[in-house]
C-alpha cells in the first residue's frame, strides 16, 4: 500500500510540476513581447467577433490580409453576443482586451457610454468613410460622434416559406388565417407559421405594422400604446387559432421548419444558409401585411467594427486602420456578402452585379423597404429586458395585452431611471 502510494505520489507530482512549468511558459511568453528586434515590427492585433460560422467567413479573408501585410498578425476570437459585450467591458477594465471588436451596432450605446471604445471621426480619413453608405454610418453615431465602421446593413426578419407546403407567400394576415385553417385540417401535426415566441425581437415587426415604436423622439420609452396592445392581441389570436404552436423558442421553430412540419417561418438572413444546405425549396417574402393595418417593420441593424480605447500606440493604430479598411473594401465586402446575404455598406460593392443578382438578396430586398432601424442607445437593453417577460406572459395567457403593456412601460421607466 505504501509503495503504491509512493508511486502515485511521484506520478502526480510530476504532473503538477509539468503543469506549473506549462503555466510559467505561458506567462513567460506574454512577458516577452515588448522586446522585439528593430524593423519591421510585427504588430499583433486581436480581433473579437460574434459572426455566425466565423471560421468559414473570416479565416480565409484574414489569411489573405496577413499574406498581403506581413507585419500584422491577426488573432481572431469568437464570442457569442452577450459574452462579447460583457467580456470586452471586463477586459478593458483590466487594461486588456482586443484592439478591434466586431459586433451589432447596439453595442455603440453601451461601449460609448462606458467609454471603452474611441470615436472614429478623425481615426479614419474622410476619403475612406465616404466609400461607405451614409445611412449605415449615421446608424453608428451617438451624441454627434462616429463610434463604429459598419460593414453590412440587414439582420432583418423576413418571411421564409417552404414552397413544397405553400407555393406562394400570403400577402396579408387574412390570407394567413385562411391558409392555416385549410392546412391544419389536412395536417394535424403541422403548423402554418412558426417563429421565436420568446424574444421581443420577433414581436417588433408587428408593433411597427400597427404604427408603434419603442422610443419617441426624446428617447423615452413608449411601450404602453394602442399599437403595442394590438400587437400583443395579434400574438394571442395567432395562438388561439392554431396558426402558431403553443410554445416555441428559436430552436423549436427551426426544428419544425427544417423537419417540414411548418409551412412558414419568420427568421433572418443568417438562417437562410442552413435551409439551403438542407436543399429545401424556399422562397423569401415580406412579412404579411396586417389586414386593416400596415406592413410589419422588422428591425434592421448594422454590424460594425469598434476600436478599443486602449489603442494609442501609433504602430497599432496604423495596423488597426489598415485592417478595418481592408475588411471594408469593395472586394472583401463582396466576398462576405455572398456568405451572409446582407447588404454591404461599401457603395461600390452594393451596386455590383454579384450582389444585385443574388437570388436570396433580391427577395430579401423587398423587406428592407419596409423596415426600421433598431435603436442603439443603451436604454434599448432595458426595453428588451422589460418587454420580453410581458410578451411571454401574454402568449402564455397569463396576462392581458392591456396589463402587459402597462407593466412593461412602468417597469421600463423605473429601470432606465435606475441605470443612471
Amino acid at each position, binding site marked *: *500500500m*505504501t509503495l503504491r*502510494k509512493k508511486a502515485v505520489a511521484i506520478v*502526480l507530482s510530476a*504532473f*503538477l510540476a*509539468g*503543469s*506549473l512549468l*506549462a*503555466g*510559467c511558459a*505561458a*506567462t513567460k511568453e*506574454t*512577458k516577452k513581447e515588448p522586446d522585439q528586434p528593430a524593423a519591421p515590427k510585427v504588430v499583433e492585433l*486581436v480581433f473579437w467577433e*460574434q459572426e*455566425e*460560422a466565423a471560421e468559414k467567413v473570416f479565416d480565409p479573408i484574414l489569411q489573405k490580409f496577413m499574406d498581403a501585410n506581413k507585419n500584422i498578425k491577426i*488573432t481572431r*476570437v*469568437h*464570442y*457569442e*453576443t452577450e*459574452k462579447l459585450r460583457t*467580456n470586452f467591458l*471586463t*477586459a478593458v*477594465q*483590466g*487594461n*486588456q482586451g482586443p484592439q478591434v471588436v466586431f459586433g451589432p451596432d447596439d453595442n455603440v450605446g453601451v461601449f460609448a457610454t462606458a467609454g471603452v471604445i474611441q470615436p472614429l471621426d478623425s481615426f479614419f480619413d474622410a476619403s475612406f468613410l465616404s466609400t461607405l453608405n451614409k445611412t449605415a454610418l449615421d446608424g453608428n453615431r451617438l451624441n454627434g460622434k462616429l463610434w463604429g465602421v459598419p460593414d453590412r446593413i440587414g439582420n432583418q426578419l423576413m418571411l421564409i416559406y417552404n414552397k413544397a407546403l405553400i407555393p406562394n407567400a400570403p400577402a396579408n394576415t387574412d390570407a394567413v388565417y385562411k391558409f392555416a385553417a385549410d392546412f391544419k385540417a389536412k395536417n394535424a*401535426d403541422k403548423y402554418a407559421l412558426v417563429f421565436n415566441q420568446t424574444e421581443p425581437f420577433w414581436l417588433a415587426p408587428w408593433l411597427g405594422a400597427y404604427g408603434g415604436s419603442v422610443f419617441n423622439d426624446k428617447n423615452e420609452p413608449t411601450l404602453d400604446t394602442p399599437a403595442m396592445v394590438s400587437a400583443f392581441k395579434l400574438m394571442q389570436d395567432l395562438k388561439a387559432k392554431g396558426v402558431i404552436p403553443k410554445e416555441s423558442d*428559436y*430552436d*423549436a421553430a*427551426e*426544428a*419544425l421548419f*427544417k*423537419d417540414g*412540419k411548418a409551412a412558414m417561418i419568420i427568421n*433572418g438572413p*443568417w*438562417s437562410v*444558409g*442552413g435551409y439551403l444546405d*438542407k436543399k429545401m425549396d424556399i422562397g423569401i417574402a415580406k412579412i404579411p401585411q396586417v389586414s386593416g393595418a400596415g406592413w410589419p417593420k422588422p428591425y434592421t441593424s448594422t454590424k460594425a467594427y469598434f476600436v478599443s480605447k486602449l489603442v494609442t500606440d501609433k504602430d497599432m493604430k496604423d495596423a488597426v486602420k489598415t485592417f478595418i479598411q481592408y475588411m471594408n473594401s469593395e472586394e472583401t465586402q463582396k466576398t462576405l456578402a455572398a456568405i451572409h446575404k446582407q447588404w454591404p455598406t461599401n457603395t461600390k460593392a452594393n451596386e455590383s452585379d454579384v450582389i444585385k443578382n443574388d437570388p436570396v438578396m433580391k427577395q430579401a430586398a423587398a423587406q428592407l423597404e419596409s423596415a426600421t432601424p433598431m435603436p442603439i442607445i443603451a436604454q434599448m437593453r432595458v426595453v428588451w429586458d422589460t418587454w420580453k417577460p410581458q410578451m411571454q406572459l401574454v402568449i402564455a395567457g397569463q396576462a392581458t395585452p392591456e396589463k402587459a403593456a402597462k407593466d412593461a412601460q412602468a417597469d421600463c421607466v423605473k429601470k432606465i431611471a435606475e441605470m443612471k
Partner: protein
Amino acid sequence: MKIRFKHRYFERGDSVPKIIAIYVTLTIVALLTFYPIWNIFNMALRPQQTLYSTSLRLIPENATLENFRVMLFEKPLLGWMGNSLIVAGTTALLSVVLSATAGYAISRFKFRGRKGFLTFLLTTQMFPAPMLLLPTFLLLTRLGLLNSYTGMIIPYVATSIPFSIWMMKGFYDTVPIELEYAAAIDGASNWTTFTKITVPLAAPAMAIAALFSFMTGWSEYVVARVILTKAAMYTLPVGLVTLQSAFSTEWGRYSAGALLTMIPAAVLFVLFSRYLVGGLTLGSVKG
C-alpha cells in the same frame, strides 16, 4: 441449502419480497435517472443538427456517428480535453492535499482560530459568483496568469477547498483517536501518524473531495471564458461554447462534444467509487 445461498449474497434481515421490491425500485430509478443522458446521445446521433425531434424513438432514424467523427477529428476537441484533464486533475490533486491536512488539524486539534476558520470557509461560498468575476479577472491579469494553466487551477482550488475541508473534517471525526494514541506510543511523530495511519483510513472522504474538485475544474466555464482567449488553451466547456452561436448552433455536433466531455468524468467516477465502498475504519480497535 437455500438459506445459506441467500445469506451468502443478501442481508440476513431482508426477506425475499423485500429484495425483489428493492431491485425493481432501483431499476426504475436508475433508468429514469439515466434517460436525460441518453437523450443527449440521441441528439448526437441525429444527422439534422436540430435540438428537438418529434419522435420518441430511443435511436433516431438515420442515426449516424458522423457528429462524433467530426468532433474528434475535425474540431480540436482532443486538445480541449487535454487542457481540461491537466486543469481538473491538478485541481483535484492540490485540493485533496490541502484539505486533507487542514481538515485533519481542525478535527484533531483545538487551536485558536479553529472555529473562525471553519466559519470563514463556509462564508467564502456565500457571495454570489457573478460579482466576483470582474475582480478575479483583474487579479489574475495583474499576476500575469491569463491564458495559463496556473491561472485556471488556482481559483478552482481556492473555490473547492472549503467543501473538501469540511468533508475531510467530518470523516476524520469518525476515525477513533485511539489509533493515533497507539501509534504515538510506538514513538511516531504526528506527521508519521497522520500520513501512515489516518490518511489511508480517510480514503473515502478523499475520494469524494477529489471527485468534487475534479468536477469543479472540469465543468467551469464562466471564469474560463474570460481568462482564456487563446484557442490553444481552451478547456472543454469553453471550446463547446464556441460551437454555440445565437442562432445556428449545430446541436448534433454540440451534443457529441458534450457526451465526449462526460466520458472521462464518468470513468473517473467509476474508478473512485470503489474507494467509497471501502467503508471507514471501525472495528480496528477492540476493547
